């Protein structure tokens, strides 16, 4: 059970991570700010509480593995890995540049702490199945986490992998699915939490849901299913841009100006995150 104190600590780490994300995307003039801001709390929870990893020994065979299937969130993964100590924060400022450690899409073998490449949407879960099978063959007790966005649930490969995971009884596989409140985007949410849950359960998965901005909720959600011996999915609701006020309304896809960066950072600093009871 997460203590109140620890939760506060994680909130402040996530605030710093968000600020790093805004700075690095501001400098690079590329990257999807919304996805990264929305997933900051979630990734901080995973890397500080859920995953068993050791930054001083990133290739430890007994570590838990993490696959980022939602590649647009690469900047926040980088910011989290840097803050967790896998590499210097200095690397963040050259994100996306020629020859940089941190490429636009996470590149396997290049980045310390990265367990898998990211690519087209719908690719991560299939790789997570293979990685989980490999760990099972080696009788390693470690788990494989795969972070997906709700949009990629439209990809057929996700369901091929979901079927395979349950057929192969991969108890060490944990899919983390982020369902964002898409706000004003005209296509709206791809699917509701309830129907995603029902689909995965019909495939033989154990599913729990929680609030992707509330550390207590995430902790309770992950704990509620960790003992179960089937593939597991944790569906976490997040708000677009993680509730951070972005210049020019809620959608900010062009390069950020220096003023935009200042507005976003002061929004993060002023309240850090919105109260978690503003659920949608």
């Amino acid at each position: 059970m997460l203590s109140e104190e620890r939760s506060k600590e994680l909130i402040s780490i996530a605030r710093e991570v968000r600020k790093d994300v805004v700075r690095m995307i501001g400098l690079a003039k590329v990257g999807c700010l919304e996805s990264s801001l929305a997933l900051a709390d979630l990734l901080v929870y995973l890397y500080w509480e859920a995953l068993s990893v050791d930054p001083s020994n990133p290739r430890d065979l007994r570590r838990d593995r993490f696959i980022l299937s939602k590649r647009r969130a690469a900047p926040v993964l980088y910011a989290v890995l840097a803050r967790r100590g896998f590499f210097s924060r200095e690397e963040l400022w050259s994100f996306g540049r020629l020859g940089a450690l941190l490429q636009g899409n996470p590149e396997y073998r290049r980045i310390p702490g990265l367990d898998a490449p990211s690519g087209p949407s719908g690719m991560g879960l299939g790789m997570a199945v293979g990685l989980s099978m490999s760990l099972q063959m080696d009788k390693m007790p470690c788990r494989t986490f795969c972070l997906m966005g709700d949009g990629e649930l439209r990809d057929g490969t996700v369901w091929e992998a979901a079927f395979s995971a349950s057929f192969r009884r991969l108890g060490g596989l944990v899919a983390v699915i982020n369902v964002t409140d898409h706000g004003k985007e005209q296509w709206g949410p791809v699917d509701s939490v309830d129907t995603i849950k029902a689909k995965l359960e019909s495939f033989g998965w154990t599913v729990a849901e929680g609030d992707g901005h509330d550390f207590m909720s995430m902790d309770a959600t992950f704990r509620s299913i960790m003992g179960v011996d089937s593939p597991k999915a944790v569906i976490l609701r997040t708000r677009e841009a993680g509730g951070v006020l972005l210049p020019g309304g809620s959608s900010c896809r062009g390069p950020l100006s220096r003023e935009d960066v200042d507005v976003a950072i002061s929004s993060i600093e002023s309240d850090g995150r919105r109260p978690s009871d503003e659920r949608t």
Partner: protein
Amino acid sequence: MREPSPLWIAYEETLCAMGEEIEDLVVLDSREPTLSGAFKSMYPRRFFVAGMSEQEMVLTAAGLALGGKRVFVSSSSPFLVGRTYDLIRSSVAIPSLEVHLVSPCGGLDMGPDGAPSQMVEDLGLMTAMPGMPVLVPCDGVSTRRLTGLTVDLKGPSYMRLTRRALRDLTGLDEGDFSIGGARLLTQGEGVTICACGIMVHEALKAAQVLSSQGIDAEVIDCYTVRPLAEQVVLSSVRRTGCCVVAEEHSLFGGLGSAVCQCLSSKYPVPVRLVCGDDRFGQSGSDEELREYYGLTSGRIVGAAVQVLNMRRR
């Protein structure tokens, strides 16, 4: 001398033999009948059937490779490389994982099934993928040796086999196989014939016919289409001054393209391609199809005479 047999049998025998020593060798198959099941019965914990979903199979293979396994994946070409191209690219080739894609049947192999089940553009797709070795053995010997070599690669590979029964050939430099190598089968000063896969056998037949006409053909088994054994091809062409390329593939992106690319930049000579041109396959028996698409020794002889006449003297 072994009886002629389908190449995938030699492939699977090699996997079975290697499985003993190489404990991280894992085999994935899209459905059980693709291979004989020999590996499965010897190493049941290291064999997986992917239930005909090749996309998931390639991703699973990538995941297994991320976990430190050396993975051999098999399914027929249209599904193995056609259906999954984007996933091979992003999950296997870009991160350079040890996933070896093996098609037990390629080209016009699946006779009666027709165009969707045949693939005459697989070599083009795979040679276009940066860093991907592309192998097309023509007999049991080369299949065994190449399978043994790919397992030690620090990245992926693609190998096209065939279901047709083919006899073992003897090279002039026996035993000297390598990824990026080629095998000299006959020596001659008249014309160079580069071939891969089943067309190597047609090239040898053509060489006999040419020999009876007083033309000595140098037949090169280009079992690695990429990287092409450029030095072997160039040193032959410097002597013969002309070249024929024979392959069971479309006009684009296969061995013909590789040889032309090499020769046009390093030693331009007349070249003729004997291949399936710019067409998909169709239903038919093996013989009928080869005749219809012109993948015969007769076409190679004709092409050889043409390039000989075009040669600058």
